[in-house]
């Protein structure tokens, strides 16, 4: 299962350890087996992409890592500590912009910082401005959220998630609603930021190319029930260009595997 050959020589301390995680959902008419015996180790500073068709439980898994949901079976540990509620070291960035419309851009970035103890107002402000600068939106800090484009909103959401200095960043299809050009810019941004501020990133997407472009590892999920199907190490050098031929080769291979089991499921 673990075919990881890390291109970067980093300490292999496991930041996140998931063991035998299973989850069921009960709706009025259905009993959904969302996750089935998922085990996964994610190293400190690693960028891992979870890929799979909709309904494969990858977002549920992310919510479980965040502590927003609880597994019915199995355990999740972050830095050796059991995860049972959202913690300050694991911040989540959502698909649709979850920015607060009643706050300005700056207010949004300050929101998480204000929940951290031991920082003066000036320090918080400085930090917020630094991260807005990092995502290239410092001059919009007094803007209202609705005045921003979709890509700018997700940049602010990224700054908001980074500002409280989490060690793990959980990203749930953050670029799903954006146009291709904006997405490509953000691939560049996120790689640059990741190389500057080593965070452990768990990134959920259904876009295989996106996963190959960003991840050290791509973990393929299959649906009904959600299971880890296969893992791919992506030893391409960074920064990666989503349009490069090497990247396309990896993406094609993974896509082939994905298509294989999606078809077998439809047939079966």
């Amino acid at each position, binding site marked *: 299962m673990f075919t990881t050959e890390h291109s970067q020589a980093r300490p292999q301390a496991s930041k996140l350890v998931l063991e035998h995680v299973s989850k069921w959902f009960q709706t009025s008419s259905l009993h959904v087996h969302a996750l089935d015996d998922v085990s996964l180790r994610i190293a400190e500073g690693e960028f891992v992409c979870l890929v799979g068709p909709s309904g494969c439980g990858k977002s549920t898994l992310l919510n479980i890592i*965040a*502590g*927003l949901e609880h597994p019915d079976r199995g355990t999740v540990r972050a830095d050796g500590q059991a995860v049972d509620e*959202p913690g*300050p070291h*694991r*911040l*989540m960035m*959502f698909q*649709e912009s*979850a920015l*607060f*419309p*009643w*706050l300005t851009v700056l207010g949004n970035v300050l*929101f*998480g910082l204000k*929940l*951290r103890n031991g920082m003066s107002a000036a320090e918080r402000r400085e930090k917020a401005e630094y991260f807005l600068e990092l995502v290239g939106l410092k001059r919009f800090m007094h803007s*209202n*959220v*609705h*005045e921003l484009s979709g890509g700018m909103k997700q940049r602010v959401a990224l700054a*908001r998630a980074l500002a*409280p200095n989490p060690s793990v960043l*959980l990203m749930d299809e953050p670029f799903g609603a954006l146009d291709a050009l904006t997405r490509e810019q953000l691939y560049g941004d996120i790689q640059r930021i990741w190389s500057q501020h080593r965070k452990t990133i768990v990134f959920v997407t259904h876009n295989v190319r996106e996963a190959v472009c960003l991840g050290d590892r791509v973990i393929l999920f299959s649906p009904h029930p959600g299971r880890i199907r296969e893992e791919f190490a992506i030893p391409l050098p960074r920064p990666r260009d989503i349009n490069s031929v090497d990247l396309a080769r990896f993406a094609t291979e993974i896509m082939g595997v994905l298509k294989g089991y999606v078809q077998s499921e439809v047939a079966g």
Partner: protein
Amino acid sequence: MITRWLAASLFFVGLVVVWHLVVKAQIWSPLLLPSPLSVLDYLRSAAEDGTLWEATLVTVRRLLMGYGLGILIGLPLGLLTASSRWCHDTIGILALGLQTLPSVCWVPLALLWFGQSEAAMLFVVVMGTLWSLIIATDNGVRTIPPIYRRAARTMGSTGLHTWTHVILPAALPFLISGMKQGWAFAWRSLMAAEIYVTILSGFGLGQLLHYGRELHAMDQVIGVIIVIVLIGLAVDKSLFAPTERFMYRRWGTERA
């Protein structure tokens, strides 16, 4: 901006002119339809002898007390019904039912319970305001996208902080429209109460209206109606309109 003012003024001047022409045509007895000038005369004399100011003061004081009390009770109850299923199934259903009850229906009850007193008046206004405010608050909190709460939770917000920093501000557009609606209901209830409850502790606009009818003083009736409408407009323009403009700017077009 100036053209808008001009258009609006022209419209209202036109309205008065039409009124004047209808009176001039003498279709109805002047007892039933007094001229604009006689209404103005009434308003001037009532303003000069102080009855109008006094009545306005009494009415506005009752209104503010009843409305304030309605908000003070309704807002927390609305938050309660939104956050607990049990409260939603009990208080929520009660509010939904009583909200449809016209506030004038509370008057007989208030008269029997509290007699001809200020308390009866207050009771009617609170009952008229409270239920719709509970419903509006409950609705507002329930329509908040759950993603706000989740995002806040991952950033470490819990309990009271989530309420004051996420849920209340997120529900603010709904709270404001609920309060605006509540204000309109409070007015309606108070007028109903003042027309039926005749007490000596204060002579409000509704009572002025009532005695205008008793005395067949149509100029008084129309004059008082105009004052009531003007107060309603003034409150809307000075209190609610700026709040709504602020929210429109902050939230953007989709929510306000």
